[in-house]
């Protein structure tokens, strides 16, 4: 099937089960990716993928506009991911105060990635970032994942979270600032060990 997504969705809503299977094929890896970044392990990501499509199938009548299927599926996947995160108490104990950033301690991330030959260093940075992401509260974490990692627009994220774009923007800015703060702290801790 070479249909565009809205056409496929319409066929699915009209009862064409092959269209549903095609949607599973098209979106399964995207959902897995978001869930894996949010939850940090394969088993939970697998659960999110399966449950998301089961819910999509069962809640298909709730989809009012076929153009917004991406937001619809992301909403279901992120809501389920957030539920799992809360159940597993992955939530960060990071203080809400982000104004007390240690201004004199800075890391020059761009300089660090300007050495592409040093694959080990790059891998370390990536691990640090993933650890830092894991410390964010669920909604901020998912906003950063969807926008900066997966490349969804703020409008798509706003529709998925059923909130104004301004809220997405605010969550994203807070998430990035917290990530900077956590990475700075990690960097400081590393330096003090040496």
């Amino acid at each position, binding site marked *: 099937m070479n249909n565009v997504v809205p056409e496929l969705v319409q066929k699915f809503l009209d009862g064409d*089960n092959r269209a*549903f*299977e095609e949607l*599973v*094929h098209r979106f*399964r*890896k995207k959902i*897995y*990716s978001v869930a*894996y*970044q949010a939850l940090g392990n*394969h088993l939970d990501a*697998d659960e999110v*993928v*399966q449950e998301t*499509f*089961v819910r999509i*199938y*069962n809640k298909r009548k709730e989809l009012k506009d076929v153009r917004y299927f991406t937001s619809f599926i992301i909403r279901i996947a992120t809501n389920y991911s957030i539920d799992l995160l809360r159940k597993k108490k992955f939530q960060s104990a990071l203080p809400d105060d982000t104004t007390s950033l240690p201004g004199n301690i*800075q*890391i*020059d*991330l*761009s*300089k*660090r*990635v300007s050495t592409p030959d040093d694959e080990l260093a790059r891998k370390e*940075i*990536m691990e640090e*970032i*993933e650890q830092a992401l894991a410390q964010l509260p669920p909604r901020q974490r998912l906003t*950063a994942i969807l926008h*900066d*990692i997966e*490349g969804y627009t703020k409008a798509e994220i706003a529709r998925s979270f059923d909130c104004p774009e301004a809220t997405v*923007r605010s969550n*994203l*800015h807070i998430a*990035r600032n917290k*990530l*900077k703060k956590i*990475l700075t702290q990690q960097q400081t801790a590393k330096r003090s060990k040496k």
Partner: protein
Amino acid sequence: MTCFNIQKLLHEYIDNELDQFQQAEIADHLDQCSECHEAWVELNGLKNLLGQIKTQQPSESYWEETTRLIMAKTVDLDENIIPVISLHEEETDKKTAFRRSLLSVAASIALLLVSIGLNSSSLTTKFAQNQPEALVFTTYELNQRFDLKSHMTDDQLAKFALIDNSLSMGFPGLPGGLIITVTGDDIN
């Protein structure tokens, strides 16, 4: 713009969400201000790094199996499901015929109750007062509502349950005992 204002707009700047004039103004400022430039380098570097994160996808065999599971939990389940008769739909579709049958069932029960010594008038009064709309009851529910046990011997209860179960056989697919629907109007 001041450094404070520039740094407030840095997120929008790196996301290319500002108008051309503001984008240019900030770019000029960053060329001249080392502090703001440093803040931009950090933020832009972070965004670039996040953009480089790629999830390692599972194997194709995993996806085949997962897709099969998803289809089994959705489409396949729908197609293989054993149809269950819905009394509510039955009543809607064949309202008159169904009501007639209900009246006959209700009458049978009333007769039964009379025959086993239970005061049927008190039963109908309770229906009309407490549940003016559709009632659904089973032997168990009747017992709960009207404390049949206190009015009936074990033998009588057994007979009642037997009739209850035999009536249910007319509705294949319904689990458990017969669910009888009557309305206040039917009873009155």
